[in-house]
């Protein structure tokens, strides 16, 4: 009997029934807002898939994304995905190190040529030849380019990989860029967030595994299922916004009443993410529920939007000196114009007087 290496067979060997696929399928369908009718297709697709080789590259990052993704090791529905993938290279998680680690990466690339998925967290510095971040003597840029050559798809995890994130924040000393700028034509999924919601990652990978294609993305390359709506649109505090009830600080009456945090700088209205519905830590809470406005961490350049506590409708940058300067210039121009007009009148008057004589 030929050894069956489908995921169904693997789980079966561990005594897990196909109900697990059904359950996982309904979970993925739910978080990705797929129609309930697609649950079985998803489950069947996953069951028939083979373990997916994943090469995880970490560049200019803080490991928060990995933390978010692997936060739980309990055998639960959320991390069944770890049974579906073969994490062939991840320098934080893998047991081996040094040359052996790099060897593992090369082996996986050779063995799964054209089929492996590259996951990237962290941005890539490209200034000065990319010298600001290197692993085993290879710059991040070089390693990314090498690894991408034979990849099937790329998943940029976290805002740094998706949009450059904090390393790219003004003044961007390392010339950090998003992965999207270096992928060439490879299919790319951005899972932004600082850190991203683990379910978004799970959902995107599962979709990729079951259907063999990339889920529908928004204009920033993010799965619409998770990034299709703003935090504000899905926020349970939205009714307070509509009724004009706001917290003016973090310890006032409004804050205690759980009013909308718009006035204290919440970026929910312009932030596309699923925090308000998926929430964090297994659905316990999310920043707004915990009393703090959204930072907008899943959006490009969120670090440079004038401050986390600056309300959305306020202008960015200091206005005072510019306006004072404008006022002085305006007054000068006004006086100049009036003097010129007066002179104009006088010269006209003079010519009139002459006319009289």
């Amino acid at each position: 009997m030929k050894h069956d290496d489908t995921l169904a067979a693997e789980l079966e060997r561990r005594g897990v029934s196909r109900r697990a696929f059904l359950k996982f399928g309904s979970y993925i369908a739910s978080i990705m807002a797929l129609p309930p009718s697609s649950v079985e297709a998803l489950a069947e697709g996953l069951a028939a898939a083979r373990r997916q080789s994943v090469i995880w590259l970490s560049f200019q990052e803080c490991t928060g994304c990995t933390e978010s993704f692997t936060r739980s090791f309990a055998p639960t529905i959320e991390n069944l995905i770890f049974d579906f993938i073969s994490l062939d290279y991840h320098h934080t998680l893998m047991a081996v190190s040094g040359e052996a680690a790099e060897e593992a990466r090369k082996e996986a690339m050779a063995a799964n040529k054209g089929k492996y998925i590259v996951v990237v967290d962290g941005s890539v510095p490209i200034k000065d030849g990319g010298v600001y971040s290197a692993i085993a003597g290879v710059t991040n840029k070089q390693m990314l380019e090498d690894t991408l050559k034979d990849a099937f798809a790329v998943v940029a995890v976290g805002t740094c990989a998706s949009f450059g994130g904090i390393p790219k924040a003004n003044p961007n000393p390392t010339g950090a860029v998003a992965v999207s700028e270096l992928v060439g034509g490879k299919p790319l999924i951005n899972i932004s967030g600082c850190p991203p919601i683990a379910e978004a990652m799970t959902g995107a990978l599962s979709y990729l595994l079951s259907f063999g294609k990339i889920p529908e993305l928004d204009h920033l390359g993010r799965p619409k299922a998770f990034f299709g709506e703003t935090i504000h649109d899905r926020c349970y505090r939205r009714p307070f916004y509509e009724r004009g009830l706001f917290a003016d600080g973090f310890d006032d009456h409004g804050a205690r009443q759980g009013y909308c945090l718009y006035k204290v700088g919440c970026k929910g209205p312009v932030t596309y993410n699923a925090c308000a519905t998926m929430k964090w830590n297994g659905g316990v809470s999310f920043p707004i529920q915990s009393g703090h406005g959204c930072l907008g961490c899943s959006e490009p350049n969120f670090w440079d939007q004038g401050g986390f506590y600056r309300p959305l409708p306020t202008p960015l940058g200091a206005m005072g000196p510019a306006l004072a300067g404008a006022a002085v210039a305006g007054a000068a121009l006004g006086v100049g114009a009036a003097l010129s007009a007066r002179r104009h009148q006088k010269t006209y008057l003079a010519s009139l007087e002459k006319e009289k004589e």
Partner: protein
Amino acid sequence: MTSACASTENLEPETGFADAIIWETLAKLTHFAASGEASTIDLGGLPMSNRDRAALDDLLGRGEVSATLDVIGRSEVWETQFAGVWRVRHHGAEGIATDLIEITVCPRILSADRRDAETAARRLAEALERKHGIAETAHET
């Protein structure tokens, strides 16, 4: 209770989602009764507060059947007091992962898969073999 978080919990508003979902359930149930066509309402992704969820549970109540599953974590399935309206709730690491209302004869997750049955038959045969020392081939299916 003076902490901001605690009082926020207490003040979670009721948004009216529960009522809306009951209306949808009624429509789907009527359709199911007439045509036999099953359907599902996914409660995930709806910005329901805990109060909304409690209100929904109250309205639907519990009927004759209830089951607990232990498949990659715990799941609960029960029929509401309205025949054909089932609740399917999968628990994840730290809470509810999937929460569904299924309008059907019996939720699919309760039924065994024939491919699993195939393996099960083999395992059962092996178990027998171990017990009686007799090699008995399972019936081909």
